[in-house]
């Protein structure tokens, strides 16, 4: 330290406001420098001589202040008192214990997000995917627990073939049960016994009876009419094939426009027409669904596939197969014995026939979640 710096720091040294290092440095300089030592000694002497002793305040001053404080607190405006109350509450709110408790609650609350419900066979918890016409193997139907169990026992889990043809057949089959789920939910109210009876007949393979009962429900009208009309067409497909079913499916959207059953029926009608080789009608029906949010992508996909396969040879082949099927059906009705022996079963010739049976079989193939 030099004298110039000492002059700047001399008051801090005098009043002991220097940090330890600077204080030691200044003191070392003072020991070595007579000038600075003289300045510091003079200031110390002046301070000592000129120090002002404190006068005792009047005896009652402290008590007077405390008394004034008490009165002042009582007279504080409401706003200030409220502010003080808020300050007290804020003081408590800032206590470490409260902060730790809040942190603990936050940790517990956030950990609850990682819990999930245990999967179980609870009828109140079913996950449904619907509005997906061409589902591969994830089609889920919501059915009552009792019927779901019965259906599982009867048919077992669905088997899925990976060929495009099989996917189309399954689309034809799996879709109807899940399709008008909203209507089904509505119709499956305990009071609607006719609809329930028709549904039971459909599931048990009594297609003719089911069709009649569904048509009766549809004729009667009401909230379940669209679903009933759809299921009637479905029963007709299982019973008589796509030629009859396509006509019935086609009627549903005109009778019940804007309903889910109507959209599903349009798609099923298209699939039926496609299987019958009637590319124009199939295309028209798929196109009608392109603008529908729930059906557009699937309709587009089906339409693309239709266009790819709509070469003249394939169309002719399908038409020939459809004609042969119609002929064999007519012969089968007239001569059952001959049909069984000479012609293969309709389900083996028509690509849609076997899946049409699966339509009902896969309806209860619910995936339990």
């Amino acid at each position, binding site marked *: 330290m030099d004298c110039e710096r000492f002059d700047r720091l001399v008051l801090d040294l005098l009043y002991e406001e220097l940090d330890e290092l600077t204080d030691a440095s200044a003191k070392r300089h003072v020991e070595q420098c007579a000038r600075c030592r003289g300045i510091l000694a003079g200031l110390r002497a002046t*301070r000592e001589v000129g120090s*002002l002793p404190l*006068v*005792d*305040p009047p005896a009652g*001053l402290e008590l007077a202040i*405390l008394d*004034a*404080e008490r009165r002042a607190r009582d007279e504080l405006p409401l706003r200030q008192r409220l502010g003080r109350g808020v300050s007290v509450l804020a*003081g408590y709110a800032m206590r470490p214990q409260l902060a730790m408790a809040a942190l603990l609650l936050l940790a517990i609350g956030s950990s609850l997000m990682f819990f999930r419900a245990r999967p179980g066979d609870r009828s109140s918890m079913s996950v449904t995917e619907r509005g997906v016409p061409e589902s591969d193997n994830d089609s889920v139907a919501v059915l009552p627990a009792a019927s779901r169990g019965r259906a599982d026992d009867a048919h077992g889990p669905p088997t899925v073939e990976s060929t495009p043809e099989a996917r189309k057949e399954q689309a034809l089959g799996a879709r109807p049960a899940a399709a008008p789920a909203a209507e089904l939910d509505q119709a499956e109210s305990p009071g609607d016994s006719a609809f329930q009876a028709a549904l039971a007949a459909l599931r048990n393979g009594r297609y003719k009876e089911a069709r009649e009962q569904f048509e009766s429900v549809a004729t009667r009208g009401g909230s379940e009419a669209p679903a009933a009309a759809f299921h009637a067409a479905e029963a007709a497909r299982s019973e008589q094939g796509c030629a009859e079913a396509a006509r019935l499916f086609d009627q549903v959207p005109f009778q019940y426009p804007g309903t889910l059953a109507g959209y599903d029926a349009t798609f099923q009608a298209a699939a039926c027409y496609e299987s019958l080789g009637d590319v124009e009608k199939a295309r028209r029906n798929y196109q009608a669904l392109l603008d529908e949010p729930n059906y557009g992508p699937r309709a587009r996909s089906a339409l693309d596939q239709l266009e790819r396969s709509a070469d003249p040879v394939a169309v002719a082949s399908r038409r020939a197969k459809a004609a042969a099927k119609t002929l064999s059906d007519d012969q089968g009705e007239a001569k059952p014995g001959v049909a069984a022996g000479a012609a293969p079963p309709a389900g083996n010739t028509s690509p849609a026939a076997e899946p049409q049976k699966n339509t009902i079989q896969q309806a209860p193939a619910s995936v339990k979640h």
Partner: protein
Amino acid sequence: MAAAPGDATDETLMVRYQRGDRAAFATLVRRHHRPLYNYVLRQLRKPQAAEDVTQEIFLRVVENANEFKHEARFSTWVYTIARNLCIDQLRKAVHRRHPSLDQPLGPGDEQSALGERVADARPVGDAERTAASSQMMTIVTQLLDTMPDEQREVFLLREVANLPFREIAVVTGVAENTVKSRMRYALDRLRTALSDFEEYARALR
């Protein structure tokens, strides 16, 4: 475990008082009312006015307790209040044509009696020492009264209130170096006035 009121810092006591702890306020009063009274007394030179202003300082503390922030120094805050109240009182005194602080005081004035009273408060030794001490205190008191306001203010805040220069700078609103310069001037004046007594002061050590 909370510290006892007597051990807690001023700032902690003030926060406790904000939460309604009146014992904390009583501790603050006990700790600060004496230096505050002396600071005000040296500024106003009237015991009754000093008593009233000291009481008023603590009333301001009560009224503005919510505005005190824990980060601030209580001593800085309370001496800022004291300084402002003294300035108000001195302005009123000027309007009432009271003698200015810069005017030299006459021998029969009340302020001379104050210096003598202060001198008498020192420990009493032998007669010669008491007489010298009394004489020095009279000189110091007269010198303080003739000192420029800004120098006297800094001198009192440093010697009576025992505030560090950094806090004095905050209270007075000037730079710390300015505070030190004023203090140096005040000490130089005092040294010149007490040059006759310096040898005596050295002898006392």
